């Protein structure tokens, strides 16, 4: 019977992808936010909220698995369709916490 830790080991693959995706996503959101502020003159950064970033990261995680055609692979590994978005979301939460700490 595999241990609880060994059940999590395959998720490293998703975590590595999330670690690449999060900075790219964060940079993209920052650029779009800066562009919007410049274009409209409004200091409305609501869409740059940490919760919004985490939700977008989760959507990216779901899309990434779909794009790669891995739904059945992860299903056969016993992970539900919510697991890949959750891993991407978790990495985004940690990233946002790190950013908040650096800003403080």
């Amino acid at each position, binding site marked *: 019977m595999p241990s609880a830790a*060994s059940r999590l*080991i395959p998720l490293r*693959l998703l975590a590595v992808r999330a670690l690449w995706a999060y900075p790219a996503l964060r940079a993209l959101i920052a650029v779009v936010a800066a562009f919007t502020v410049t274009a409209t003159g409004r200091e409305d950064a609501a869409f740059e909220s940490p919760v919004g970033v985490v939700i977008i990261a989760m959507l990216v995680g779901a899309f990434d698995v779909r794009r790669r055609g891995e739904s059945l692979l992860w299903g056969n590994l016993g992970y539900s369709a919510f697991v890949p978005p959750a891993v991407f979301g978790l990495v985004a939460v940690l990233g946002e916490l790190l950013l908040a700490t650096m800003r403080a």
Partner: protein
Amino acid sequence: MNAPLLVADCVSKSFGTRRVLTAGSLRAQAGEVRVLLGRNGIGKSTLMKIAAGVVQADAGTVRLDGRAMLSPSLPVLARAGLFYLPDHDILSPRVPLGTQLRLFEQRFAGRSAEEAARLADVTHFWAAQPSALSGGELRRAELALALSRRPRCLLADEPFRGIAPVDHDRLSAVFRQLAADGCAVVITGHEVHSLLAVADHVTWCTSGTTYELGAPATALEHEAFQREYAIGVQL
């Protein structure tokens, strides 16, 4: 005979106005290779998807180890020992095969990834990306995943599709290996000679329902099966 490991019992399924299955049943028996035969579009793949929890039936039940599952899903069934091989690729195209075999080895602590690769004869593709493999190599690589998982039940949808006859024997050997390990194997397809050669039991899917025809020799004596599907087929 022991009770079947996995049963999709009396299931029905419609897509829009088209009723594909009226009362189809699929039984996976430990230690046996069962083949599900039938014409195109008759509902074989749908029945298999329902048994694997990939598609939900309109009516009927899926039972694993005799326990009815209210809303079966692939992840839940996979954790209980199922491996589902669809009629399209399941390997991630850009991740090396060895890495993907390791995922199953680490997740389920079944067979070592190296041994699974050796049994499926894909050791030399260990570092290759699945996108670089041919159809037959890809099918063997996917079966290596199943071997690494050491499943209690394997549902394989058209595993011989689009591959050279020489690879049929290699795939059949893997199915026999799994059954010898106690796995309940169910496969579909239209390569009747290869399928009957590897089968212990034949199930015929027709007119929205299924018939258990028994051993291949017995199945071929079934007049309607011979007339409507297996014309001229001999063992």
